[in-house]
């Protein structure tokens, strides 16, 4: 799964650590998500979408 987390995070000017703290995960998990290595649960995807001020999960996470 591809994500636009890094792009939106840069837009919002927040670091991986800050985003990780908002959504209650480790920085490594955010890094893994950004690299497309790990597919998040619906709950985590929803939290990240909200943290990045986006409306839809599909805006942030794109199926290959």
């Amino acid at each position, binding site marked *: 799964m591809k994500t636009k987390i890094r792009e939106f995070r840069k837009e919002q000017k927040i670091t991986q650590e800050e985003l990780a703290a908002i*959504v*209650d*995960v*480790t920085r*490594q*998990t955010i890094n893994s998500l950004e690299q497309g290595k790990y597919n998040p*649960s619906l709950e985590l995807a929803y939290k990240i979408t909200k943290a990045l001020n986006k409306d839809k999960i599909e805006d942030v996470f794109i199926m290959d």
Partner: protein
Amino acid sequence: MTSKKVVTKKSMIFRIVFITVLIVSGALLNQFNVGTNELFGYSTVGNYLIFIGFVMVLVTTITYFTKREKIIDERMEMLRNKTMTLTFTVFIFAAFALIIWDGIWPITMRYSIFISYAVCTMLLFYGIAYKVLERRY
């Protein structure tokens, strides 16, 4: 599901109870002269249990004073599950291989030494497998 965990009061109580059981049972074994065979370089089983008890006191004290909030998130849980499955599978195959090995060249090692090696190998394998899987996911 995301989650947060800390070194809880409950786990600390469990450790204290376990340490107490180790030391008390060690003292009782010594008192009633049970297990007077040498074990891991200790003259009696009781002495060995008491030693392990005091090592755990040290570890628990260090853990208590250095405790910090530890986040365990869904990715870590997934990694843990995958590592456990892998370790378990490898353990089953290794056990089978050892059964065959024992049939060909009988294992003469003491059970306590053998099982210690087995547990240490499993822990080492778990740690390495976790680190390897962490790079993949």
